[in-house]
């Protein structure tokens, strides 16, 4: 008889985050929840309005989660995403409200471009600051981004005195609340970003470097890659994605403020980890993240339709993450008692 020594906890954790089973497990979870809520809600869940409202709500959190995912893959974290998003949105809002959005078509187009440049310019500055402090000064990502988060939000609060900037041109309103062929524009924006992000992170040298960085930073450096430059780009990308999410938020509410969406911050980490992204870095796919976001959105929409408080869905989100991890552990434990596969 073969004696089996239990694998160390670290190895078990790594197995938990293998990309394949995560997607499978989330799909099973999704189908189970669909069945459960389908029985409870019937046609109230499976109708156009409910699905459309899900499609409107999902993209903001989804893009924020993408912005969190990139640093997570590299073994870091970005706590400044929400603050960056708000400051970017405020920059765009400033351009929209201070300079005409009337006048000739050409000038209107020009100001829209100027607003975008302002938003992404601000985000790029924050991203570069984060990246430089983390890569070149060696500050741990949590602390560096905790500092920038506080400072960036402080700048936004200081400039606006905590107030709301509202009233944007019709195009922004259309982005936030319009649909093309019945598909919400925000969802299209998300698709346009998520698909290239998936390609970028798994099929390009940059993506490979990011995940390798998360697995073993020293080894990557010794293999001749400038890890610091990669890290700066990671946080730059994270900030730019945050700006997109900030602009979407601004378009949906038709206003911008220093403190919008703050409850998303820790949820994005939760969503990413549920989607199979190893918080220690190195493993994770956009597909897993999208699936986990769909599961979370389903829970929240069902809670809404069942007329229970949104806070219950917050609790359920946390419980789902813990539950999924727990099932993974029980499964790994159960396999110790199954006959070991013969080495081929």
């Amino acid at each position, binding site marked *: 008889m073969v004696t089996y020594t239990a694998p160390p906890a670290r190895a078990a954790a790594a197995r938990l985050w293998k990309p394949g089973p995560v997607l499978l497990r989330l799909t099973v979870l999704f189908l189970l929840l669909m069945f459960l809520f389908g029985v409870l809600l019937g046609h109230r869940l499976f109708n156009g309005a409910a699905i459309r409202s899900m499609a409107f709500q999902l993209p903001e959190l989804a893009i924020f989660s993408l912005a969190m995912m990139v640093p997570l893959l590299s073994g870091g974290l970005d706590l400044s995403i929400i603050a960056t998003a708000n400051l970017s949105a405020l920059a765009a809002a400033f351009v929209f409200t201070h300079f005409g959005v009337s006048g000739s078509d050409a000038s209107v187009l020009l100001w829209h471009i100027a607003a975008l440049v302002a938003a992404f310019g601000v985000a790029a500055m924050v991203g570069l600051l984060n990246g430089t402090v983390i890569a070149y000064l060696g500050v741990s990502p949590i602390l560096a981004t905790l500092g920038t988060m506080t400072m960036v939000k*402080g700048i936004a609060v200081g400039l606006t005195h905590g107030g709301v900037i509202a009233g944007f041109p019709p195009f922004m309103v259309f982005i936030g609340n319009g649909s093309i062929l019945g598909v919400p524009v925000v969802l299209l924006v998300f698709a346009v970003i998520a698909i290239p992000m998936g390609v970028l992170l798994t099929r390009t040298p940059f993506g490979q470097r990011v995940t390798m960085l998360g697995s073993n930073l020293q080894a990557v450096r010794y293999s001749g890659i400038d890890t610091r430059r990669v890290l700066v780009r990671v946080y730059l990308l994270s900030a730019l994605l945050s700006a997109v999410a900030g602009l979407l938020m601004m378009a949906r509410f038709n206003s911008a403020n220093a403190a919008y969406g703050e409850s998303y911050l820790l949820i994005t980490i939760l969503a990413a980890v549920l989607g199979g992204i190893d918080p220690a870095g190195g493993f994770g796919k956009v597909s897993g993240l999208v699936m986990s976001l769909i599961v979370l959105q389903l829970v929240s929409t069902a809670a809404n339709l069942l007329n229970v408080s949104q806070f219950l869905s917050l609790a359920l989100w946390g419980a789902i993450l813990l539950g999924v991890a727990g099932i993974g552990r029980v499964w790994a434990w159960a396999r110790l008692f199954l006959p070991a596969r013969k080495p081929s």
Partner: protein
Amino acid sequence: MPDLSKRLLHSHEGKLLLVVLALVIFLSLATKSFLSLQNMIDLLTSYSFSGMLAAGLLVVLISGGIDISFTASASVAQYVAMTIANQYHIGWIEVILICAVVGIACGLINAVLIGTLGLSSIIVTIATLNVFFGLLMFVTHGNEIFALPDWFVNGANWVVYTDKQGNPYIFNLQMIGLIAAFVLTALLLTRTNIGRQIYALGSNKDAAQRVGIKVFRLNLLVYGYMGFVAGMASLVQAQDAQSVSPNALVGRELDVLAAVVLGGASLTGGVGTVFGTILGVMLLAFLQNGLLLLGVQSYWSECFTGAVILIAVSALALERQRQRAGVRRVMA
């Protein structure tokens, strides 16, 4: 003792002390009211909550873990305690016991999940933050408790001294809580075997395990202690605010983390002192209070706080880089 002063200067705490002293000297010269006894009493009272939590979080950070959920544990503890206090005739001892039990229970849940799920402590505690807070908001419908028992509202303050104008200077529950939290944490960390074990665990988990430290049991103690401190802090905060609101505390966890880290505690574990943490809390408290007294619009205070955090963590990181380079030079 030239040796001691030299050592202090080279430590992080020593440099932080110089920064805090410089800030104190500047603020007492620039403003009339900063160094007044009344301002200090107000500061001690209003920063008691974050200060106490910082003491608890320090222990968790030294053990190599992190806790994000303590604000939710605190909210649950104070809500449960005050609801029961309003229903039944109970006194201080019972309220303290209830807060302790609820807080410790939340902490133990964290420790068990961290020990069994194979997830890192930050992920587990983010999840439990949402679970605790979500359930609290769901059960309470977000309703605040405005009417607290009289004995609780009147609290525990003693007038120590009344000046010529008749202004009373008081010693209150908040100060007791703050001092007790720091003293207790200092005793735990420096005067007990368990404290040495916590440092050992944070410095090198595998080595700690090999020398026979029971990691799971030690984690129960560490997170249980954090929960206990959160429960006590919630009580002190409720007494200060004179009401209980289920969503007043959640969202402040990262501020507390910032204070502890400013005090020199490392997120990778094994490093940190109570003295440093006290200085970290003081730095942020003096900065925010000083800006207000200097007449800077309160809107900008967060921005300055962020800049100070960023500069401080950068300086700390550079310092550690230089130390490592020094070690390498000696080895070579």
